């Protein structure tokens, strides 16, 4: 097969080394991001599973004006600030309201609540009833780490892009040959290397997308701050008004009050103009006044430029063409952020794209693991001292324990969601506690299993059993067994079946496919501690060793490769 011209010797070695170092440094954080991210793709779809009160059909006749009035009566909303409304959809049948509340004359506070159809009961979302999707989504960008979590995840994204670029450079020469290297035979190092390069090349488009968009979401402030300071006189609103021109339109705080037509009439007009589109959300200011300004979000969820924003004054209900974005007719500057968002969240082309994203993300997790295993196997030979080899082994074991225990830990949060009673105060903290505590415990358990194959199998066994229990717990706690929800609230059944399937596959792999014998030869045992010198019978006499053995100094030189 044709080989491409590769890099020169020095360049190759330098690139190889930076790839190794960058890869090892980010590896387990990147694994967590991809694994949690793969599940987060479906965080809306799994909402009905996690919250049984959401297992209702969308109420087509819900009175949105009444719902907003209810929220206003609970929170006393500051309508002059931006209020965002997300309309009910099949996965989330509640009306969500994100608004501002005046604390005093100068400061406002953000609020979030949802309204149930039918009863119009208002539920504060800052104190949610359930959490599974949210916890996994927050884990995806380390939001549980205060302040710096988001930046850390952004940096991991940036270094992932770096590792992708250097990875392509060093494997450039074998780009075509490696693409067909689905090999399961040969030395273990070869197997890991082939898996790493094949999956790296196969996932390349996804990796580039996620390197760039992930860095964008995490490090947006790093990019914006210098521009705002030096180009826009430190005024952030100038930049944001460029991105969202409707926010630049002033609405008067003391405009005369008025009662506009019901929101449903405007929505019916838009539906008529854009048949086939769903109205997903509404951004509104001064809703209760004459100059009320509304921006409607529409989307057909098909193409990658399918979202649109239609801005109008409610007084005349005419779409203001010059600042609205029409789906598929967007200008270049209007498309970029929408494009980045759609690409990152897999929010185009329907459920099939999300499944492809999910599979590729899990394969990327495997690619990350194989990278660590290449690093370990390449160093497991007599050219390294026993101490060094022990160190490589322990690092690998810790990495594998953190990463592979995520499978049982994720099944655990689904179980915790169904085993903590719904009316228990602070149940969300309990669920999170069980998840993170369980993950820690599982990781610590893994450190006791010295062989990687045993560690992997044990996690598959534990996780497989837990997975099988997920649909059972759901059925027992809510009475909604998957054969009953299949037709009514399908996604509840799909979540159950996903776990049932993954449980069966995990146990099958653990019992019938995988063997216990990896690594084939264990790295040498840690050197025994020197025996203490026998006590002298004369206590004052000090024992002097004639030839003190040189104690090998343990150096963290894994960065040297």
């Amino acid at each position: 097969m044709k080989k491409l011209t590769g890099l020169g010797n020095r360049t190759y070695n330098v690139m190889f080394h930076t790839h190794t170092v960058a890869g090892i440094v980010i590896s387990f954080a990147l694994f967590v991001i991809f694994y949690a991210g793969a599940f987060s793709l479906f965080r809306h779809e799994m909402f009905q599973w996690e919250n049984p009160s959401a297992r209702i059909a969308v109420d087509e006749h819900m009175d949105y004006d009444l719902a907003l009035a209810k929220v206003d009566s609970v929170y006393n909303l500051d309508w002059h600030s931006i209020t965002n409304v997300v309309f009910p959809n099949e996965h989330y049948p509640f009306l969500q309201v994100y608004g501002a509340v005046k604390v005093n004359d100068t400061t406002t506070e953000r609020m979030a609540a949802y309204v149930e159809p039918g009863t119009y009961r208002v539920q504060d979302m800052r104190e949610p009833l359930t959490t599974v999707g949210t916890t996994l989504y927050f884990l995806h960008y380390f939001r549980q780490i205060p302040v710096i979590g988001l930046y850390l995840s952004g940096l991991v994204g940036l270094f992932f892009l770096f590792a992708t670029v250097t990875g392509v450079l060093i494997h450039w020469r074998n780009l075509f040959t490696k693409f067909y290297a689905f090999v399961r035979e040969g030395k273990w190092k070869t197997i890991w290397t082939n898996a790493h390069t094949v999956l790296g090349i196969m996932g390349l488009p996804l990796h580039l997308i996620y390197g760039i968009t992930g860095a964008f979401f995490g490090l947006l402030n790093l990019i914006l701050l210098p521009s705002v300071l030096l180009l826009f006189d430190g005024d952030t609103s100038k930049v944001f008004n460029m991105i969202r021109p409707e926010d630049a339109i002033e609405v008067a705080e003391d405009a005369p009050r008025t009662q506009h037509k019901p929101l449903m009439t405007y929505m019916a007009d838009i539906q008529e103009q854009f048949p086939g589109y769903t109205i997903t959300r509404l951004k509104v200011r001064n809703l209760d006044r004459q100059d009320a300004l509304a921006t409607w979000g529409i989307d057909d969820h098909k193409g990658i430029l399918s979202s649109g924003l239609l801005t109008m004054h409610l007084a005349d209900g005419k779409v203001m063409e010059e600042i609205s974005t029409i789906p598929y007719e967007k200008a270049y500057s209007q498309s970029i952020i929408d494009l980045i968002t759609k690409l990152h969240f897999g929010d185009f082309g329907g459920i099939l794209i999300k499944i492809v994203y999910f599979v590729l993300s899990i394969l990327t997790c495997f690619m990350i693991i194989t990278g660590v295993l290449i690093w370990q196997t390449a160093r497991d030979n007599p050219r390294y001292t026993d101490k060094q080899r022990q160190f490589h082994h322990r690092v690998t074991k810790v990495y594998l324990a953190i990463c592979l225990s995520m499978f049982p830990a994720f099944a655990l949060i689904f179980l915790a969601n169904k085993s903590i009673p719904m009316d228990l105060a602070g149940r969300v903290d309990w669920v999170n506690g069980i998840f993170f505590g369980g993950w820690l415990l599982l990781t610590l358990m893994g450190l006791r299993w010295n062989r990687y194959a045993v560690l992997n199998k044990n996690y598959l066994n534990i996780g497989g059993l837990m997975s099988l229990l997920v649909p059972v717990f759901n059925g027992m706690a809510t009475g909604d067994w998957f054969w009953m929800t299949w037709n009514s609230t399908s996604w509840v059944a799909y979540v159950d079946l996903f776990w049932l399937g993954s449980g069966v596959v995990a146990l099958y792999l653990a019992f019938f496919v995988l063997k216990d014998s990896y690594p084939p030869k264990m790295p040498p045992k840690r050197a025994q501690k020197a025996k203490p010198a026998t006590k002298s019978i004369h206590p004052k006499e000090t024992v002097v060793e004639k030839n003190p053995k040189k104690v090998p100094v343990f150096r963290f030189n894994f960065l040297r490769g």
Partner: protein
Amino acid sequence: MPAKAKYLSSKWQRASKVTAAILGSYLATMFIHMAAVQLADKSAAALMTTAYSTFLMWVAFMTLAFLVKKGWHIWAIYGGITLVCSLILFL
């Protein structure tokens, strides 16, 4: 398989390269972009492009930083880029 040590740099060289790769690349990237946005009359299209082009350029500079043999050379290059672009920006 691990990279051959003879091609890798010493401790101080490495430190200066790593800082140049992360910080120096960031400064050079940002100033090139800000100068470009300034020259493009702060147009929305130019500003929006920075949302993705910054990361691509940052990573490209990051990669290049390790290929230059001397650490101070790369700092000189990225410092020079930053200086020239800030001249465009402020004059």
